[in-house]
């Protein structure tokens, strides 16, 4: 069981701010997770259509897509940041 959280237009496209999922055993990295999410429905396919642009964080720390999920409790997906 892992918590997924979404922000900005990733959240809007998926249609929810967060969800808790059980990952298949072969989902080892952030890339794997994105690929798996895209199979779950049109809204995910749309949110991740330009997957390389999407940023990820594991337990509130920025990570690259090749990062191992390992014992993550919370994984976040969001567009490039535009604060400041």
């Amino acid at each position, binding site marked *: 069981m892992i918590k997924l*959280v979404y*922000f*900005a*237009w990733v959240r809007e496209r998926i249609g929810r701010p967060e969800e808790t999922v059980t990952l298949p055993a072969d989902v080892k990295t952030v890339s794997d997770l994105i690929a798996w999410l895209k199979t779950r429905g049109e809204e995910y396919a749309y949110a991740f259509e330009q997957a390389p642009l999407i940023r990820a*964080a594991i337990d*509130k*720390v*920025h990570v690259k897509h090749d990062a191992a999920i390992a014992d993550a409790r919370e994984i*976040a997906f*969001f*567009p*490039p*940041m*535009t*604060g*400041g």
Partner: protein
Amino acid sequence: MFSIRVQSDDFDIASEQKRLCEGRTDIGAVVTFTGLCRDEAGALTALELEHYPGMAEEEMTRVLEKARQRWPLDGATLIHRHGKIAPGGNIVLVVTASRHRKAAFAAAEFLMDYLKTHAPFWKKEHRKDGTSGGWVEAKHADDQALEKWSGA
């Protein structure tokens, strides 16, 4: 004193600067940067700032730590607002205090470059015609600005 805050309330630069400097005589230079809600075309009612609660604070703390490792700072404050902000309103504040002006300037600019690209905040436009102008796009220039800090 070093602190970060994420808040919907407005901030006052004079109080923040005073808080850093009060009762001290070892600070020679204080730099503030205020980022404002800009609306050149006059088309916006507000920018809405969404953030990732928890991570925003953690990332701002990490960015501040990086700056402290790099420059001899005597104090620094980072404040980032969230929620709807009208044109002309304050969005972000960086205050850096140091014995030396070069350190205060460089650290403030570094902190802003990192906040722009690392702090989990996103801007959405709300337009006067009632439509959403959509999400503000990240600027390539902001990523480029970071390169300045990658040597040394």
